[in-house]
Structure formats: structure tokens, C-alpha cells
């Protein structure tokens, strides 16, 4: 009994140990196979990575197939490991493995050959393009030599014929055949690793080759670029002018609005609430002309559209009071900008009432959460208030008040009293949010802004030119006369638009002969800007017309600004001719009349009421549109003005 027990025990022990052994074996095998798999995978991955991207698709396919095979074999071996003997398993595994290896090597070879071909093609193309673009024989030859040399050196390790065929790159098929042969041999020899290494080395060589090519081409390109960086003066000026003109004329949006930070934040917050949270709103941006209303809005919208949730969501409708001169046109434009033409079909050109009803229905159907928010931008808001019954404003503000589709109505206007223009029912629907833009710049900030407007950015292609330019701008801003000019302009208006026109005139005067902005340019620009246009016109009048103006001036002085007619002027003129004149001679009345009519045409003289047509021309009442000082100044500037005329103008009473 004890023997039996011992026997059983031993049996059990043996069986346990055997099973343990088997399990250990299996474990080891599994480990080894996993390791090999991982290695293989890593190798394959490496190969894949190094291969040229053209053959990626093929590689992925192959990789997937290999993976599936390996996985299958693994699962198979695992399931069979208990019951089936290790040898059979090993055999199967080896078979599978060999199959996989062959497959991998084949595919790899194909990939490599393809990639090599492509690489050669790319090389040739690159060298060709380089040769065309650079046109420097030395560099071309150098490049080609380097390419070919490196390539040949690396490829000689594997096969001379292969490298030769690659270099010549005549027939793709021959290359493929060679590759196949090579791969078969390798498979037979079961040197998968060699194959892998070969492919690795090949791909490496290809990569190195490509890299070298790219490097060479890049360096060559850089060289040519550096040559272009040393621009000639004319090119530098034209580039700088192009940049500055875009800034000064085209009103390109600045990166950040100057001096309007609080308004910027306020407006952005309001719009974000509509765009993101779906809150309806209405706001007016009020500021004098040229104070940057449109610029502010542009910056805010740019920022808003960069938000991810607003980018695709927000609908923007831009209207301008100058263009949409009545509600019907405005409504058509809204439907067009909301891309509702397709929905409405031919009804875009239907009646006003239909359009409005449709639009309102569309806007009211939505709700706060699901509808896309709509931003209505109304430029020249005050002009919309002149539309009949203010229908458009009423409806837009009404929608913005009721919690329907989120709508933001943004009005831009230069009229401070714009709220007075609104009807009561419209006004009560407006949120009474107003953003006022009044420039609070000090003069020092203003000068800084001038410097910023004029200086070239750091990414200007010619650093030397931009340095010189910026230096001259800095020096210019410190100049006394320039400062005086800027101060006068600043005292006239703080807005940037008048500044832009001044700077534009100065910048446009820069030419090849003087490549930096000089003080004289700004002075000349100021002279052009500040010229009195009426004085200019007076300068071109004939002596007779000037005499008539003086006569009118005297009439104005005597009768204290009462209107006059031609007969009175002629009478005054005749008195002057009779009494005082030595140089001016008598003219026939029609000739004087013609001169008078010329003044009328120039609108230096204006009829008091043009409605009365029955009055004869001579007796029509007129007013002089010139100041006393303007006449006297014009007289001083008039070329070769006769002395007696001057005397007459200076005398107190005719």
C-alpha cells in the first residue's frame, strides 16, 4: 500500500515535474518567439521608417500581413502547446516563420528596389532642377559628383551591378529582377538578417544620398538667397514702399489696436458672449471719422474667428449704409450673405414683405442653444435710421431683444446724436450699449505711433536696409521741425487717417536718389496737406476776376455781409476804374459778366436762393464765399499784381 502510495507520489511528482518542464519549455519558447517577433517587428518598423515615403503603402500592407501571420502562429502555438508536442509545434512555427520571412524579405526587396528607383529619379530631378535654377556649372558638377560619389560608395558594398543599374536608372524591370534574384538567394541561405541588414543599408544609403542632395541643394539655395538678401537699393526701396503703402493706404489691420485696449476687451467680451454662449446683444461703436471704428471691429472679429467654437459657428452679415441705401436692397444683401438664395429660390427677388417675413421666420424659428449666432455689422448706422419707417432696424433689434436665434447687432457711426435719430419703438429695443472711441493719446505716444508706423518689420528681407531705414526714422522723429509738424497735425486731429495721408505723401517721395526718409520729405508733404485750396484757386484768377472779388469784399464791408448782385459789383468796379485805376482798363459789361459767371462757376460766389429763376442774372442776389483774410492773402501772393489794385483792396471803403 505504501509502495503504491510512493509510486503514485513519484508518478505525480514526475508528472508534475514533467508538466513543469513542459510549461517552462513552452514559456521559454513563447518568450523567445515573442522576442523574435518583437525584434522582427522592430526591424521591419525601422526598415519601414527608413524607406522612402513613396513605398509606404506597400510596406504597410506587407507589415500588416506579417503581423497577422505572426499573431496567428503565436495563437496557434499557444493553443497547441499543451497537447501537441514541441517539435511539431516548432516545425509549424518554423514553417510559418520561414514563410513569413520569405514574404517579408520579398516585400522588403520590392520596396527597396522601388524606393531606390524613386530615389534615383528624385536625385536626377533635383540635380536637373538645381542645374537649371542655379546655372552655375561648378556647383552643378560638384553636386552631381558628390551625389554620385556617395551613392556609388554606399551601393558598391552590396552589388556593383545594382549600383550601376541604379546610377544609370535606365530600366526599372531589370532592377526588379536583380532584386528578386538576390532575395531568393538570401532566402535559400536563410540569412534573413543579412537581407534585413542589406535592405537597411540600402535604405540608409538612399536616405544619406537624399539627405546629401537636399543639403547641397539647400546650401545652394541659401547661397543664392543670401545673394538676393544683399538687394540693390532700388529693390529695397520698392519693397519698403510696398510694405509701407499697404500699411498706410490699404489700412491693413495692425496686430493690436493702439490706445483702444479697454474698448477692444469690452467689444470682444460682448461678441464672445453671442458667439459662444448664444446671448443676443446690440451695441453701437461711436467715434469721429478716422478714429478706427472699422479697424477695432476688424481686430475683434479676427480674434473672435480664431476661437475654435466661433470659427465655424458664427455667421457674419456686413451691411454698409452707403451701399444699402434702402431696406429692400439691405434685405436682399442679408439673404445673399446668409446664403439663403437656394432656400428662397427665386424669391430673393420677390417682394419686400415676402423677403422680410421669410427672414424673420428663419430668425425666430431658432432657439438659443441650437441655432448658429448671427452678427449683423451695420457700417454708417445713422444712414439706416433714414430708411423708411426704420423697418430693418426695428426688426433686427426686435430679434435681438427676444430670446430667439442669437443675434448681435453692431452699429458703427460717427454721429454722437445717433440715438436721437431712432424712433421710439426702435430705441426701446436697443440695448443702449455704446462704445465711444475718443483718442486719449498723448503727444509722446503719438510720436511713438508714428515711429511704429514708419519702421520696417524685423523680417524684412534685407536686414541692412531695414536697419538703415529704421535708424533714419528714429532720427527723423527726434528732429525739431518734424516734431513741430507732427504737433500741428496732432493738434488738428488725433486720428490716424490724417496722419496716414501725411506719412504716405512723405513716403511716396522716397526714391533711388535718396533711399531714406528725410526731413525735407515730411516738410514737403505737410506743405501739400496744409495748403489752402481756396487760396490756390484765387491764385489762378485773372486780374479782372480778382478786381470783382475785391469789389465784393468792399460791398461786404460796407453793407455788413448783406447779399449783393452783379449790378452792385459792377458799379463798384466802375467807380474804381474811374477814380483810381491806372493799369486796369475799362471793360465792356458783358466781358465783366463773363468773369463774374466764371466766379459763380468756381463757387467762390453763391446765389442766396437758387430757386428764384425769374430774376434777371444781373440782379440775382449773391454771397461771397471767401473770408476777408483769404482775399488779402491771395492778393499778396498774386503774381505781378498791379499796385493800384492792391491799394484799392487795402483802402477802407471802396
Amino acid at each position, binding site marked *: 500500500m505504501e509502495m503504491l502510495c510512493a509510486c503514485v507520489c513519484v508518478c505525480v511528482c514526475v508528472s508534475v515535474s514533467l508538466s513543469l518542464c513542459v510549461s517552462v519549455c513552452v514559456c521559454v519558447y513563447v518568450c523567445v518567439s515573442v522576442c523574435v517577433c518583437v525584434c522582427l517587428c522592430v526591424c521591419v518598423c525601422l526598415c519601414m521608417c527608413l524607406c522612402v515615403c513613396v513605398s509606404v503603402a506597400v510596406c504597410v500592407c506587407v507589415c500588416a500581413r506579417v503581423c497577422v501571420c505572426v499573431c496567428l502562429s503565436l495563437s496557434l502555438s499557444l493553443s497547441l502547446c499543451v497537447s501537441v508536442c514541441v517539435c511539431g509545434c516548432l516545425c509549424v512555427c518554423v514553417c510559418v516563420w520561414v514563410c513569413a520571412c520569405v514574404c517579408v524579405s520579398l516585400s522588403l526587396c520590392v520596396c527597396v528596389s522601388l524606393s531606390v528607383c524613386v530615389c534615383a529619379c528624385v536625385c536626377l530631378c533635383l540635380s536637373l532642377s538645381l542645374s537649371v535654377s542655379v546655372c552655375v556649372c561648378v556647383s552643378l558638377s560638384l553636386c552631381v559628383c558628390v551625389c554620385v560619389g556617395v551613392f556609388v560608395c554606399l551601393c558598391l558594398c552590396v552589388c556593383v551591378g545594382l549600383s550601376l543599374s541604379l546610377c544609370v536608372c535606365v530600366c526599372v524591370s531589370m532592377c526588379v529582377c536583380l532584386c528578386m534574384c538576390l532575395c531568393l538567394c538570401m532566402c535559400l541561405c536563410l540569412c534573413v538578417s543579412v537581407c534585413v541588414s542589406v535592405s537597411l543599408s540600402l535604405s540608409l544609403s538612399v536616405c544619406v544620398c537624399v539627405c546629401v542632395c537636399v543639403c547641397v541643394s539647400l546650401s545652394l539655395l541659401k547661397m543664392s538667397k543670401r545673394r538676393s538678401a544683399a538687394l540693390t537699393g532700388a529693390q529695397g526701396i520698392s519693397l519698403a514702399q510696398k510694405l509701407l503703402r499697404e500699411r498706410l493706404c490699404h489700412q491693413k489691420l495692425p496686430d493690436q489696436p493702439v490706445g483702444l485696449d479697454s474698448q477692444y476687451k469690452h467689444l470682444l467680451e460682448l461678441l464672445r458672449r453671442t458667439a459662444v454662449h448664444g446671448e443676443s446683444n446690440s451695441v453701437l461703436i461711436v467715434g469721429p471719422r478716422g478714429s478706427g471704428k472699422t479697424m477695432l471691429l476688424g481686430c475683434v472679429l479676427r480674434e473672435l474667428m480664431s476661437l475654435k467654437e466661433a470659427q465655424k459657428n458664427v455667421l457674419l452679415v456686413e451691411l454698409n449704409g452707403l451701399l444699402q441705401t434702402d431696406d429692400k436692397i439691405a434685405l436682399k444683401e442679408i439673404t445673399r450673405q446668409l446664403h439663403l438664395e437656394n432656400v428662397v429660390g427665386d424669391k430673393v427677388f420677390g417682394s419686400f414683405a415676402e423677403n422680410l417675413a421669410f427672414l424673420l421666420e428663419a430668425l425666430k424659428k431658432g432657439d438659443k442653444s441650437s441655432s448658429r449666432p448671427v452678427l449683423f455689422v451695420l457700417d454708417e448706422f445713422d444712414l439706416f435710421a433714414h430708411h423708411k419707417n426704420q423697418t430693418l432696424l426695428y426688426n433686427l433689434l426686435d430679434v435681438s431683444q427676444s430670446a430667439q436665434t442669437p443675434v448681435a447687432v453692431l452699429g458703427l457711426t460717427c454721429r454722437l446724436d445717433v440715438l436721437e435719430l431712432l424712433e421710439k419703438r426702435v430705441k426701446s429695443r436697443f440695448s443702449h450699449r455704446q462704445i465711444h472711441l475718443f483718442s486719449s493719446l498723448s503727444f509722446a505716444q503719438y510720436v511713438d505711433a508714428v515711429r511704429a508706423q514708419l519702421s520696417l518689420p524685423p523680417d524684412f528681407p534685407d536686414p541692412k536696409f531695414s536697419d538703415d531705414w529704421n535708424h533714419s526714422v528714429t532720427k527723423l522723429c527726434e528732429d525739431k521741425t518734424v516734431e513741430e509738424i507732427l504737433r500741428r497735425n496732432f493738434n488738428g486731429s488725433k486720428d490716424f487717417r490724417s496722419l496716414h495721408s501725411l506719412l504716405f*505723401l512723405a513716403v511716396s517721395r522716397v526714391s533711388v536718389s535718396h533711399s531714406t526718409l528725410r526731413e525735407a520729405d515730411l516738410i514737403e508733404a505737410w506743405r501739400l496737406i496744409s495748403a489752402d*485750396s481756396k487760396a490756390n*484757386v484765387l491764385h489762378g484768377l*485773372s486780374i479782372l476776376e480778382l478786381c470783382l472779388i475785391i469789389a465784393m469784399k468792399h460791398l461786404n464791408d460796407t453793407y455788413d455781409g448783406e447779399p449783393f448782385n452783379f449790378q452792385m459789383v459792377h458799379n463798384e468796379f466802375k467807380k474804381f476804374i474811374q477814380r483810381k485805376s491806372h493799369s486796369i482798363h475799362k471793360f465792356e459789361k458783358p466781358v465783366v459778366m463773363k468773369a463774374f459767371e466764371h466766379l459763380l462757376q468756381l463757387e467762390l460766389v453763391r446765389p442766396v436762393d437758387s430757386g428764384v429763376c425769374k430774376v434777371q442774372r444781373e440782379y440775382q442776389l449773391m454771397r461771397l464765399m471767401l473770408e476777408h483774410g483769404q482775399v488779402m492773402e491771395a492778393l499778396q501772393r498774386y503774381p505781378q499784381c498791379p499796385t493800384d489794385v492792391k491799394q484799392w483792396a487795402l483802402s477802407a471803403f471802396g
Partner: protein
Amino acid sequence: MFSSSSLPIQPLCIRIIQPSNLIKRMSVTLQCPGYPEDTLRSLAERLPCRETQLATLLALMGQPDQYSYPSVFIYGHRATGKSHVVLSIMKDLELPHASVDCVECVSSGLLFHQVLSAFFGPDAAALLPRCPSLSDFVRLYKQMSSNSPATQTRYIILDRAERMRDMDFSLLPALLRLQELVNDNVTVILLSEIVWEKFRPNTGCFEPLLFHFPDYSKAELVQILSWDHHPSYTPELYASYINILLGVFFSVCRDLRELRHLAVLNFSKFCEPLEKGEAKESDIHKLWKNIEPHLQRAMQTVYLREVSSVQWEQQQMDEKEATTLRVLSAHAHIELPYYSKFLLIAAYLASFNPARTDRRFFLKSHGKIRKTNFLKKHEKTSNHLLGPKPFPLDRLMAIFYSVVDSRVAPTASVFSQISSLVTLQLLSQVGHDDQLDSPKYKCSVSLDFILAISRCVCVCVRLLDLLALSLVIQSQVVRQERSLFTAVSNLHLL
């Protein structure tokens, strides 16, 4: 006619501009990268005396691919070369431009049509709806320019821009900021004679760049006018002729176009003594004496457009045959019926005399003359300065009866003559036409006209002539009224 002692010019001071001087002036080189140099040179040669304007304008425009200022306003007197310079630049440098004369555009639709067809071809313009609004124009422009973005700055040139003020109120402000509205490289150039201040709308608008074309100085006018000299005479002779012409006309007219017209018209007269062999080219004084009165006459007729240039030439031909001077005034040729003339004279007297004076002037026994406060203060300023006053029909008829020498029955023919005078616009009816019982009229002819009529009525009207003259004097110098009244009453007693 001017007396020869008070001559405005002296022929000795005629200055002849040397041709070398001209060449030196023209050879100002323009530096403008981006444009072909030889074209610029030929452009500068074709635009004499506008070199600085040309250079400034080119600098403002910049290179063709650069942005230019959204709107430029160019002003200057008539015929100072505004549109000529701008259009020459556009045509010679082959820049994309649309040139529109605002006089031609009775509606803004025509303007849009011209602009679109100049930039994008007639197909684009055909897409405009029938009565295009600004909104349609901007939309279509945007659509077209997105298809073919501007590689060069596009220019819209609006000549005689003052007419745009009469069009749609938003047209001008919108065009001034068109670059911003269509987001394209486009510049609007406005040309006008009137200063910018007259354009600015109530609530302001985008301010364009102002650019002035100054008038030509006298020397420049001589230089330009000397260009079209006659081939069979020397340039020096023509220059001296131009100097004489300017001596007469320069104080009245500085319009190059008008002066040129006058110069061409009168040159044959100037050359007459040369052709006849009476004078040599160097004999400038003689030539001047010949032409000067002729030019004075031209100022009264051709300059005022009272005769056409064809008529003027015709008359020159006549003068050659029968060297007689003729008055060329147009308004001396109106023929009126006998009573109509008297009616017109009566209307004139009624319009320009206060009603209170009628008693003194037209009654034989007008009673005592009170010296003091005869004329009220507001009556003292002459009607000849303030214009005609309306008068009722009765007063007209009363004066008419008193001035006509024979008795006239108040028949329908007399009244119908009044209405025909109204239709001729020699009289004008004041107030509404439906006032049948006491219509009021105003005389709307000048004193010269009345004098011309009264001269040709009859002997008795010499009296009226005097009367009218005395009335003029009376109205101008109130102080001398007493002596005048006696003179007038004496006349009536005759």
C-alpha cells in the same frame, strides 16, 4: 473802344523765348521705377510745364503693383491740364483704367456700366441689373475682381466730379472709399475745378488726398501757345504774336483753350500786312498797330460767343473787301411792333421808378414840389442796382398813355401785345397766372436794350431817350434831383 494812349502792353517788352531754354526745361528726367524709361521721357516731352505735377502724380501712384491711396482729388482751373496729364499717364503707361466724364452720366447706372466694362469687359457690365444700385455695383465688382485679382493698381478717373454731387448722395462717399469696400487695389481719381470743401457731405466722409494743378504763368502760356506756330512763318514771329495776344487777353482770360482758339482765329489778320508786303517780320510795332484794335473787337464778340468763329472769319473776309466797322451786338436786332416798343419803354420806367414819382414825371401839372423827404430812405438806393420792381397793369397803361404821342384806344390788340412781350420774356409776369383782374409785371430788359429801342422809335422818343438817361442819373445821384426835375418838366412842356 480803348484809346491808344492807354495801351496795356508795349511792343518793346516782347520777350522771345529761346529754343535752347525750352529744351533745357524739358530734359528733366523722371525717376520712377517700375515704368519704362523711354515712355516716361516721351510723356514728359508731351506735357510741357507740367513736369512737377507729372512727377508728383507718378510718385503718388507708385509702382503698378503697389497699393495706392484710395482716392485722390485733383483740382485746378479750367485747361490747366488735369485730365490731359492723368489720361496721358494712363494711356502711355498702359495702366488699367476707366475714365468717366460725369457730365455724360445722367444716372449712376451709366457710371457703373462704364467702369465695369472698362475693367472686366462688356460681359461683366451686362450682368448689372436694369437700375443698378451701388450695392449691386460693389457686389459685381467684388465678384469680378475675385475672378481676376488686380496685378496692377486699377484707376477710376472721374472727370468733372462736381456733377457727382447732384447724383445719389451716397455715391461720392462710397467711391472715395471704394478700395475698402471692394477690397481690391483700386484708386479713384476725381478731377474738378471746384475746391474740395464744396464736396464734403454733412457728416463727413473719407478724406481724399488733395492735389492742386496750378495755373500756367504768362511765360508758360507763351511757351505752350508757341508750339503750334504756323509753318510758313518763323517761330519768333509767332511768339511775338502770342505776346501781343496775351497783352490784350491775359487780364481777362487765362484759359489756355480759349486763348489758343483766339490765337488761331486771328493769326491770319496778323499776317495780312506781311502778305501784302507792307511790313517785314522785324517790323513788330507796325504789326501790333494793325492787330490790336482787331483783338479788342474780338474780345467783345468772339470771346463772349456772340458770333461763332465761322461768322467771325466771314466778317474778316467782308472787312477785307469793304473795310467798314460794324457793330456785332446780337441784341440790337430785335424787331418789335410800334406800340410794343412803347409798352416796353413804359414797363421799364414803371419798373425802375418809384410809383410816387410818377406824378411828377408824367403829369403836366404836378403841383408843388416838396423838397424835404421827397424820397424815403429805402427808395434812395437806386433800382438800377437792386433790380426791377413789379408794377400793376394799370400803372403800366397809365405811363404808356402818357408817353405815346398820339391817343391810343385800350383795345385788345394792345393787351395782346403785353402778353406777347411776356412770351418773348422781355416782360415777366409776377405771381400766379390766374390773377386776371390785376396782374403784375416786371421789366426784364437792360438799359442798353431800352436805349437801343428808344433810339429807333421816332423823333419824339429822343425825348424819352433823354428822360431815360436823366432817370438813370437821378437814381444814381439823388442830390441833384432838383435840377433834374426842372429839366424833365421842361422837356414835357416842349
